[in-house]
């Protein structure tokens, strides 16, 4: 079996609501689905073995020779590597003995979040707060839109840069702390070694010497009692930073107190790395032996780090007259360095429960004085269960962005919920930092519905982010152009700092390619499945397959959300069973059995009652507005626009918008060229009517025909082409519908025929025209503008011309430009556009030539 393609579905998708790899694989010989399942399971187990909690995998047949493997993942790179290993290694080897496991583990360590960041992200996710990494590092964004917050490791976005700068300056920190009576070791800044010694004498020995700015204990020397020691220590410190502090040496153990907000969340007693002698082994041997301890690792994933006998360690030993070859007596503790940092092999014991309340109060005050929301307070004291005044202990340092590992997984004692504490500080109880999300999907009417919902929300005062096939809009400003109905655009809106609510057109392509761009939504609108579109693409051959794709947003509706479903489309109605939240149905027909049944069960529906668009729940009916007075319906004539309004009202209602806002919204929503280009824009010219629309599938044609029938006209004409990537069947079907509805048809082949050879689309359409019972005149033009131009050249009073626009902006500019010219100049329209008509060729039917 071999891999043909791998696709990462990052959001809820056809197969799962989790991120999965979708793998197309082909069998070498006899199809063996059970084997494929075992391979998928192995890929899952390998991920589990390196520490990811993933649980879903499957293998499903695609064809005789092909199957589809599905493997849940957390980190894409790791999952892909695990997948390769699962394919290339015999499944008989136990997972733990797969040779590449350590490499996979290393990769996992490299890409996964560090322990501090990871703990915060997990805590957020447990509260239902979405998290998204912005870089491969530790920068994570929580929540969405205007509710978003960020962290970078243990810094939050409200960690003050000024406070960090203060914490960096130990002398300034001490001055500030002393001002509020927090015990600090008295000391002074020294510029020369001699000054340092003089200061040491003034302060009283023993003293500590450290760089004024610095971190991780670099360049710090403590317990100095002699002139030589002070001078050496000064030189070491000065090498780290120009300014050096001499201060009173404090007796006792190093403690780290973690203050989050105004709470002491955790405390640890820290010890420098040490070995204990057995009377036989050398220090070097003892270190090597201790490093065998499985708790000691090379990275931040284990609770202890490996011991190191590096230059600092050797120097420290030498100060005590030892070398790595010395043999300590049995039971003798040899400290390998002074510094108790975990990263250099130190250990941490949780002492949270023993911290004296007075000590905790001082630590909290220290954090507040420096101005940090998350602070690691270093305290040296003989005991932490007595006030500092009693132990003569002191706060020696305040650290911004403190490491959390020692509190999460102390070497001994209980781990503390520090990630939770940070999340609880950032988000008040019940706040999941989400903004309302409406996802709109379906075969027809997605864009208009999306725009309409966005319009209603914006009218109610929300700053709306919207994605649709025309671009991305935030607060009405277009920030991206082109087809933006995919997950990438959705993520852009959800990551935009000004967005209070998102309305996302969610098209089929993106769902298949990447899954959804969000994990949950509040409302999923499904306009219809109809006769479908894009069938035969991406393995979606059947209308039922398409319905499953369109149901993905419905499956992502949160328990408190709702699916807004078209009651007239049986495939859409079926989706109700997949919705965790509520269902709101809409239909123009108030006596639709689905509506009646739903209302009877106390459900909400949106429909038309006595000419009024109305929200009905059980017996209670709330009118929203007279259908024929809502501009989008063009006097109540355009049925599919009524459907779009119903769906929009249902969505807005479910989001809890006041009825007045909804009323104003639908009454002011129009579909003119400026606000909704290519969405049933109606233009008139000397007794003829021109409708511009983007519809390009059979369901759209059916709906358009229904609407056009309500416009007074003598003749119906259309400009149309079919997209080359649709099935032959669909192209023929569209032509057949056109022939049934129109008297004159202008066709052309798109510049980009999407994989078809020249002339093929025209040929297929001709086959469709032939199979129709009617035989309208069919004329071919060399391109879209040529076809539109020719149709307009031949327009006569009483004509109703539908132009299906593909190059939307260009076509709209072209049409409105021509009409404007005809209004202002004396030349008749036909004369201006005669050259277009000259290029026409008769394709089919009709009487007489072009």
């Amino acid at each position, binding site marked *: 079996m071999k891999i043909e393609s791998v696709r990462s579905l990052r959001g809820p998708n056809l197969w799962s609501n989790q991120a999965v790899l979708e793998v197309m694989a082909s069998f070498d010989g006899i199809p063996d689905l059970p084997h494929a399942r075992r391979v998928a399971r192995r890929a899952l187990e390998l991920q589990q073995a390196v520490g990811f909690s993933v649980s879903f995998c499957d293998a499903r047949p695609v064809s005789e020779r092909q199957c589809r493997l599905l493997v849940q993942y957390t980190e894409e790179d790791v999952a892909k590597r695990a997948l390769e290993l699962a394919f290339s290694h015999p499944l008989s080897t136990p997972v733990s003995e797969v040779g590449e496991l350590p490499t996979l583990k290393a990769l996992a360590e490299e890409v996964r979040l560090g322990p501090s960041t990871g703990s915060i992200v997990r805590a957020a996710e447990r509260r239902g707060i979405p998290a998204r990494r912005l870089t*491969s590092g530790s920068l994570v964004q929580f929540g969405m839109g205007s509710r978003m917050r960020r962290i*970078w490791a243990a810094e939050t976005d409200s960690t003050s840069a000024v406070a960090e700068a*203060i914490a960096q300056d130990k002398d300034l920190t001490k001055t500030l702390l002393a*001002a509020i*009576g927090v015990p600090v070791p008295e000391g002074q800044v020294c510029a020369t070694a001699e000054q340092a010694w003089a200061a040491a004498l003034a302060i009283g020995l023993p003293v500590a010497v450290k760089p004024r700015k610095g971190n991780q204990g670099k360049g710090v020397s403590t317990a100095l009692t002699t002139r030589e020691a002070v001078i050496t220590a000064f030189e070491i410190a000065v090498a780290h930073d120009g300014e050096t502090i001499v201060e009173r040496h404090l007796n006792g153990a190093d403690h780290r107190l973690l203050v989050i907000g105004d709470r002491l969340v955790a405390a640890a007693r820290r010890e420098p790395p040490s070995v204990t002698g057995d009377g036989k082994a050398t220090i070097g041997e003892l270190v090597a032996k201790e490093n065998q301890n499985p708790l000691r690792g090379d990275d931040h994933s284990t609770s202890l780090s490996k011991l190191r006998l590096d230059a600092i360690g050797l120097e420290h030993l030498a100060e005590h007259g030892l070398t790595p070859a010395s043999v300590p007596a049995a039971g003798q503790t040899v400290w390998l360095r002074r510094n108790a940092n975990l990263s250099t092999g130190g250990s941490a014991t949780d002492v949270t429960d023993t911290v004296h309340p007075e000590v905790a109060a001082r630590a909290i005050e220290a954090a507040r004085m420096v*101005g940090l929301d998350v602070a690691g307070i270093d305290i040296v004291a003989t005991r932490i269960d007595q006030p500092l005044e009693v132990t003569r202990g002191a706060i020696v340092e305040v650290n911004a962005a403190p490491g959390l590992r020692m509190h999460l997984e102390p070497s001994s004692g209980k781990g503390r919920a520090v990630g939770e504490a940070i999340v609880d500080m950032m988000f008040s109880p019940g706040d999941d930092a989400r903004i309302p999300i409406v996802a709109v999907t379906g075969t027809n009417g997605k864009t208009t519905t999306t725009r309409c919902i966005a319009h209603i929300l914006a009218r109610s005062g929300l700053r709306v982010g919207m994605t649709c096939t025309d671009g991305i809009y935030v607060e009405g400003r277009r*920030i*991206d152009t082109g087809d933006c109905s995919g997950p990438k655009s959705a993520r852009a809106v959800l990551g*935009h*700092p000004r967005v209070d609510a998102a309305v996302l057109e969610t098209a089929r392509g993106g769902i298949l390619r990447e899954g959804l761009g969000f994990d949950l939504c509040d409302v999923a609108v499904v306009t219809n499945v109809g006769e479908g579109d894009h069938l035969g693409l991406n393995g979606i051959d059947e209308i039922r397959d398409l319905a499953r794709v369109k149901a993905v947003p419905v499956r992502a509706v949160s328990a408190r959300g709702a699916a807004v479903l078209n009651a007239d489309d049986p495939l859409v109605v079926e989706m109700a069973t997949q919705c965790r939240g509520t269902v709101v149905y809409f239909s123009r027909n108030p006596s639709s059995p689905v509506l009646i049944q739903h209302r009877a069960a106390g459900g909400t529906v949106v429909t038309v009652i006595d000419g009024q668009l109305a929200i009905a729940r059980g017996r209670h009916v709330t009118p929203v507005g007279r259908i024929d007075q809502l501009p989008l319906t063009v006097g109540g004539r355009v049925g599919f626009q009524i459907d779009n309004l119903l769906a929009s009202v249902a969505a807005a209602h479910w989001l809890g918008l006041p009825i007045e806002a909804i009323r104003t919204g639908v009454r002011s929503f129009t579909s003119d060229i400026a606000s909704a280009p290519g969405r049933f824009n109606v233009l008139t010219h000397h007794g003829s009517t021109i409708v511009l629309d983007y519809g390009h599938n059979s369901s759209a044609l059916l709906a358009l025909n229904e609407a056009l029938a309500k416009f007074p006209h003598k003749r119906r004409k259309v400009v149309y082409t079919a997209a080359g990537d649709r099935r032959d069947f669909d192209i023929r079907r569209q032509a057949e519908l056109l022939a049934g509805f129109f008297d004159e048809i202008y066709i052309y082949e798109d510049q980009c025929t999407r994989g078809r050879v020249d002339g093929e689309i025209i040929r297929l359409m001709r086959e469709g025209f032939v199979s129709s019972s009617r035989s309208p005149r069919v004329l071919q033009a060399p391109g879209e503008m040529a076809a539109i131009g020719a149709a307009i050249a031949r327009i006569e009073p009483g004509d109703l011309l539908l132009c299906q626009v593909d190059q939307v902006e260009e076509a709209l500019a072209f049409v409105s430009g021509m009409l404007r010219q005809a209004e202002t100049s004396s030349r008749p329209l036909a004369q201006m556009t005669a050259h277009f008509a000259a290029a026409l060729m008769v394709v089919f039917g009709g009487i007489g030539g072009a």
Partner: protein
Amino acid sequence: MQIRKVFDLNGPNIWSNRPAIEAWVDLGHFEELPTNKLPGFTERLMAQLPSLLEHRCSIGERGGFLQRLETGTWLGHVLEHVTLELHSLAYSPLGFGRARETLEYGVYKVVVRAEDAGFAQLCMRSARELILATVDGRPFDLDAELKRLRIEGGRRCLGPGTKAIVDAAQARGIPHLRLTDGNLVQLGYGKAQRRIWTAESDRTSAVAESIAQDKDLTRRMLAAAGVPVPLGRAVTSASDAWLAAQELGEPVVVKPIDGNQGRAVSIRLDTEDAIRQAYELAAKEDRHGAVGSGSGVIVERFVPGRHHRVLVVGEQAIASVRGEADVLTGDGSSSIRQLVEQANLDPRRGEDDTWVLTKIELGPIALELLRRQGLTLDSVPDPGQEVLIQHHGDLTVDETDELHPEVAAMCVLAAQTIGLDIAGMDVVAQDIGLPLAEQGGAVIEVNASPGLLAHLKPLVGKPRPVGEAIVNQLFPAGELGRVPLVAVSGTRGRVEVTQLVARGLALSGHQVARADSTGLYLGERLLRPGTAADAAGARRALMNPSASAAVIEVSELGTLEAGLAFDLCQIAIVTSTMGAEQVARPGVEDRTAIDKAIRAPIDVVMPDGFGVLNADDPVVVAMAEKCTGHVVWFGLGEVEITPMQRHIAAGGSALVRLGSQLFWWERGQKSPPISAAPLTESTPGHAVEPVMAAAAALLAVGVSPARLEEFLNSSVC
């Protein structure tokens, strides 16, 4: 002439309500030699410092000080004026000075206002040298001295941006405390405080700053939010840089991911060689390597246009300046090297961002630019020939009024996207008056802690009120950053009053910081033992971020030697001036100075605040007229005794004791008697005074008489 001692009066003092230094100057034999008896002194001094002509002095007109010199004045007075003038020439003008005799023969107190006490002292010492040299007719290198002072001023005083913010705060009545000798400043007191460090506020997010440091991440985030940015990407090697350039389309810009101030940024590159070289240069400059991956260098499509800097504060684009390309014009005889040297002689050019113009550096980027023009450093351009030396020169032209609202909105969005409350946006566009999208302009960088000088002192156009904008961002309209501050002064019973007032305020829910001679407290907790009844103690109380109110004991000597630690107070209480003469320093001053020191807090009562005065002490009574707030009197005397009676009759407030009962008149309205059991007819006056003073203060801040009665009976024994 010796300067014996200098006191740094860091707050309101007996001379003025602004910080000053007070020097004790012993004139020695010059006490016998006023200026009219020093031959040629006045002429020489005026020749050295002609601007002294502007000093009006006590005469009150231009040339006033010159008249004093001519008619004869003492060198202490001359020292005052020369100090002010040197400060003015080297750094910034100062308004205030005084020279007064002491009780000791030939010894003067010379006082000058000071922004930074240390710097004012340096100016005074230079002034002394100058005067002595002038007396002797010795040469004095004034230019060298001013240059030295200018550097010291730049180092010790607040930087121009910080000063603009502090000045704006002061103008709004928001107090400040410098927390370091640098630019870290606390605005406001206690719980209401905010902090700034140059153009960073305490709400400037450290995470946002890290994001802004990473130009590749910044660019991606801005692009996602819809802010126009140049196309580009991070690259991993010189070859990758060239590859990226081809993908993006030349010309390109090559720059370090976390560089600063345009360092190692090469622009408009179109050849492989130039791009590779620019890569190496940028790779060297990058300090930490990229946050993501790669070498820490990015390649972007070159955006043509001028360089603009838009300052965003909160939700507003406050100011915009632009830079013109740096062009040297040939004279036909100087080489480019010489032309650069000449340009760098411009006194407005300096090494760092405290100068409006920076010195032209002939680094690799400038050399490459010359090479592309077919020139070297030794080329001699023709007269009038223009040589481009830097694409984006210093930001010197204010264009705030031209800023298009769309561009402003994009800059605000960019700041919000990164998460900065104060940010400088580097924008490249032909015309800042047109939307960016129309002209292919782009935001090329986001800067945290932006320099403000270019907006404060543009070479062309109007200065912009950026300090005001930042202060308004920190303190919404109506907020002054103040907490109730009660200062207790007087010769008797200060500690008792301080403690009582603090406890009284605590009863109404305040977390009170108290500084008195028994220590520094927050609530009942002793923060620091030892006296805090000095400027240092008061300062600490006001620095405490937990304090919602402060009660501060003010000692006369503390005021004389260090001034007050606060600029204004809500309530100043004066207990008594009895025995003030004993505090006066022998040979230096008499009782008047001490009375002034006792009065100092009364001088700085806020207009809606209260001066609480002992009506039984005539000296204290006289202080009423110096009080800019309301006056509240307390006294043991009979109501009939004037001036209390007149005060009450005029609608004033007062607390009067009759036996063990207290009567409170609030704006002339009498409340029911308050019975204070601990006070009886026989309680001696000195024990009653503090209780009365504290009670009057508490009533003044709105504690109800009933509540006060309860408080007094429970806490006074």
